[in-house]
């Protein structure tokens, strides 16, 4: 950590890791995104970290969906029957 990726001398590993979630959340501006992406192309450690956080984030997102079979048959079904 701390070294600069070969292809980009403007952003360090620490800076990439500090902004990895904002990067994955789409919350950084285009120039910084571009710097991070260039860094990731040349830095295996940061690209592994980013891939890990992305996979974990996707796992959490998938768990946000839960089938509601009992609910459909019960109260929620009754609510929907009004429309």
């Amino acid at each position, binding site marked *: 950590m701390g070294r600069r990726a070969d292809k980009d001398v403007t952003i360090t590993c620490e800076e990439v890791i500090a902004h990895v979630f904002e990067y994955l959340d789409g919350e950084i501006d285009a120039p910084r995104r571009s710097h991070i992406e260039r860094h990731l192309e040349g830095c295996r450690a940061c690209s592994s970290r980013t891939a890990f956080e992305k996979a974990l984030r996707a796992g959490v997102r998938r768990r*946000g969906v839960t089938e509601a079979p009992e609910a459909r048959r019960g109260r929620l079904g009754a609510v929907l029957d009004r429309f």
Partner: protein
Amino acid sequence: MTKDAAGAFFRAEVERLMDRLYGTALRLTCNRADAEDLVSETVTKAWAGFSQLSDRKSFPKWIFRILVNTFISERRRARPESIEDMSLSDEESFSLFEKLHQPFLLWWSNPEQELINKLLREDIEQALSGLQEGYRTVLILVEVNGCSYAEAADILGLPVGTVRSRLNRARSMLQRMLWKQAQAAGLIAPTRDEEPTNG
């Protein structure tokens, strides 16, 4: 759009989104009965305000916003401290990746990916449930429902900077809980500094 057509559209959209609505409600409330109540109240409120929705394409975001706002209003009424005034955790930031990553194994082993593959729905659900409500809510808004930080800030009535810091803390706490659960389940060995000492 006639009233019948509006009703048909509304019903079709709610049915299409039902599992996500219920899933979000369950993550927020951590209780099946409360989740059903929350979705039921959300659908009722959404129908009451449906005629005001000018852009039908924004229906999913609109109804999720109603769901989260309904949850927050209810919590503010029941427990005023739960969303806004939670104590800030002093815990250091925690990274599962840094715990698992072993650079010397980089070319023939990937313990980080292996752990993600082993984590079950229950592991993540349990970790989410273990978060304080204020942290869990912001994580669900952004990570599960795909809200921007500004949208989450608007819904929660918080500055964007607070959303960002709560989100970072929520992720850190979630990863720490997943680490502990994975150790307890034997998915990973304790690290040297965590091994129990004798005497």
